[in-house]
């Protein structure tokens, strides 16, 4: 029974590491372990006092439930690194879900799913065009598309759609050993994006653009193309999240996903990303996603009543990033 909290602890300690990098003096470094320590303590207490916490069912729930936010956060991180923001992810999640469910009724899933994700990427491309092409402030551009895409989703179908072909749904519901398939997929996505951002010229260019767009432009790099790319990636992951979410619940709802943008941004920022761009990491974002998922999981396990949950959630978020410096 003792090995499990270690795993959780190790996963969470990623936050600590990210955080510590940002601090220079000893005191800062010490403080930076607070979230890690706090959550180790929390996870340990949970493991000791609640049988349910370490049950396979609960841990695989935890992983199943963070998939949506995990995927959306990955795209969000890419956009944030480029000094942008994408508020439209929630609407894109709904769009992809509705389109996928609709197409599943007329096409086999290996066609329908990629098509739906493609539609999500078109939405991302619209964001990219507004931001990179027309130079709109990303907040405004994606706020506008958040509204417009949501409206469009309702025009496509104002009622939920239940796909008839459930093959894809079964894949999403399956597990590999104790780990849900979508969680494995999500972890693969994190690894791919991590490699993309750290090891490819395009990834580095996105980082650099967020740090100093003018410097990148003066180095002869095509800034607009890379900003466009970041929004396409965000659309891609929101789309994947959307089809997985719809398949997970077995029904595509046009209203799904509102508020997702805040959770995704929170995961990135908790993980060390700066909304000013250029700073942030895939590892940190993973820790942020896990932390948010863990908080909600623990609060439910302890049967904390909904209102108090909200209060605790706020307090725990603060605690978790207490040592982080303000980055604007």
């Amino acid at each position, binding site marked *: 029974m003792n090995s499990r909290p270690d795993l959780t602890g190790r996963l969470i300690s990623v936050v600590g590491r990210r955080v510590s990098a940002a601090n220079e003096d000893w005191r800062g470094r010490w403080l930076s372990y607070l979230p890690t320590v706090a959550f180790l303590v929390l996870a340990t207490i949970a493991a000791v006092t609640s049988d349910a916490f370490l049950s396979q069912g609960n841990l695989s729930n935890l992983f199943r439930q963070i998939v949506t936010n995990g995927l959306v956060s990955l795209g969000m991180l890419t956009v944030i690194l480029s000094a942008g923001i994408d508020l439209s992810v929630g609407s894109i999640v709904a769009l992809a879900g509705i389109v996928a469910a609709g197409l599943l009724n007329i096409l086999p899933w290996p066609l329908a799913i990629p098509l739906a994700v493609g539609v999500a990427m078109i939405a991302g491309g619209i964001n990219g065009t507004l931001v990179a092409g027309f130079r709109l402030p990303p907040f405004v551009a994606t706020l506008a598309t958040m509204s417009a895409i949501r409206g469009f989703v309702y025009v496509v179908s104002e009622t939920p759609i239940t796909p008839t072909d459930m093959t894809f749904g079964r894949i999403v519901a399956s597990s590999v050993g104790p780990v849900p398939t979508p969680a494995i997929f999500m972890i693969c996505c994190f690894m791919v994006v991590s490699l993309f951002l750290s090891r*490819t*010229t395009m990834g580095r*260019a996105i980082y*650099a653009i967020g740090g100093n767009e003018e*410097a990148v*432009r*003066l180095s*002869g790099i095509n800034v607009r193309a890379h900003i466009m790319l970041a929004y396409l990636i965000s659309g891609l992951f929101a789309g994947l999240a959307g089809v997985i979410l719809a398949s997970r619940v077995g029904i595509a709802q046009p209203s799904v996903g509102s508020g997702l943008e805040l959770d995704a941004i929170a995961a990135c920022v908790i993980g060390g990303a700066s909304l000013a761009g250029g700073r942030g990491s895939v590892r940190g974002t993973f820790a942020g996603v896990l932390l948010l998922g863990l908080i909600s999981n623990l609060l439910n396990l302890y049967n904390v009543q909904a209102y108090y949950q909200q209060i605790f959630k706020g307090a725990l978020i603060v605690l978790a990033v207490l040592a982080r410096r303000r980055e604007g």
Partner: protein
Amino acid sequence: MSQADAPAPVPTAPRLEMRGISKRYDATRALRGVDLVVQPGEIHAIAGENGAGKSTLIKVLAGAVARDAGTIKIDGLETELPSPHAAHQAGIRVVYQEFSLVPHLSVAENILLGQLPSRAGGMWIDWKAAARLASAALDSLGFDVPNVRRPVESLPVSQRQMVEIAKAMLERPRILVLDEPSAVLSGGDLDRLFNAVRALRDAGTTVLYVSHRLDEVFQIASRITVLKDGGLVGTVDSASIDQPGLVRMMVGRELAEIYPARSASVGEPVLRVRNLSRSRAFREVNLDLAPGEILGVFGLVGSGRTDVVRAIFGADASTGEMTLDGRPYRPRSPGDALSQGVAMLSEDRARDGLVLQLSLRDNLSLASFSRMSRLGVISKSQQRALVTDEIAEVGIRAPSINALVRRLSGGNQQKVVVGKWLLRGARVLLLDEPTRGVDVGAKADIYRIIASLAERGKAILLVSSELPEILGMSDRILVMRGGRLVGEFSRHEATEERLLAAAAGVVEGAAA
């Protein structure tokens, strides 16, 4: 004055031929029909006062700014240069006056920005090769930037400047442009830069060089083009003109001795510093500073001067004892230091000195609100009067007091920082590279103001990497090396050779 045109006709076309270049920003005519002709393998200087249009001309060449009129030919071929990308393709590399680095990224990545080495069919970056290439680029210039994996934001300005230079020189450019590369370099680093530039020239690169340090201009350039108020004054052979002559071309009048005569009457120390230390920055620094005194601090890049003045100003934590007027002085913050009469002008204007997107008016007022407000409400008329006076005192050239500082030329931005602290006033002034990028005429004005402040009993600590400035202004000179004070010279003892020797750690000069 010889308005010498291009020398003997050259068989091939000039490397660069810019004709009738014009550019205006709203009401400001930054360039009016400027011509510039440069031959292959030539080092060509561009000189002129602050705001003359030097940087604008360079940005036009780099494709960073769209010109309103004019033609550009490279090797005889007319070229549009509509974007930085196009200029890059044409083999033009620029070291900009205001840094263009990405702060969070490593030194290596900044140097290789846009051309990171890759493996496996151009997909994956080879970080090992990147580090190697970046180190090699720095080494070949003789620059000492120890760890190329550190983020550039953690480097002092001088090293950031080296990174900029290494980035521009990475591949042998066809045209290399250096806009004020030397403002934060000192002694040996400057020599190393010059050697590298000469080597490039010998290999056929054309070099454009902008600097306000005229001795450098004569050292390195074979021809000089002078701009004034956006217009062309002329192009001369550097062999056919002397320094006063060049100043006359730039300023339009004779400029006598730029360092004011000083009669030092030094009293009891007002500031005493004992055993001041900060881990990994400097150790056991002792110094006394008296009213009426100008104490110069010289040292090579990274010797720790900036860290010392920041500690005295309370901007960073430190250990040791300090007294002010005999009473213990332990500033908890810059605000605390200021309230006790200690002010600091920092070396990095963009990072620590200016709020670039605010106006001249706001920036000049920022440290002096108490002089222009009652009960927290700013008196517009008082503010205007004080700010306008200050603009005149340090000679800032700007369309109006509401002009955004971002839109001023580099030298004028520096004058804003100087003006901000002069407006504030203080008993003890810590000046870290106060004349970085300021033209000769304005420098003379600033020196005169500093001298008169000392005359009026202010205590002044002057940190500078520019030897003539240190020698010309200081009553006493301290030399730092590796985070320690290693030498002290009176005004009469000090010579360029002795200061450099002490700063570099050559045995002869060590007098502490």
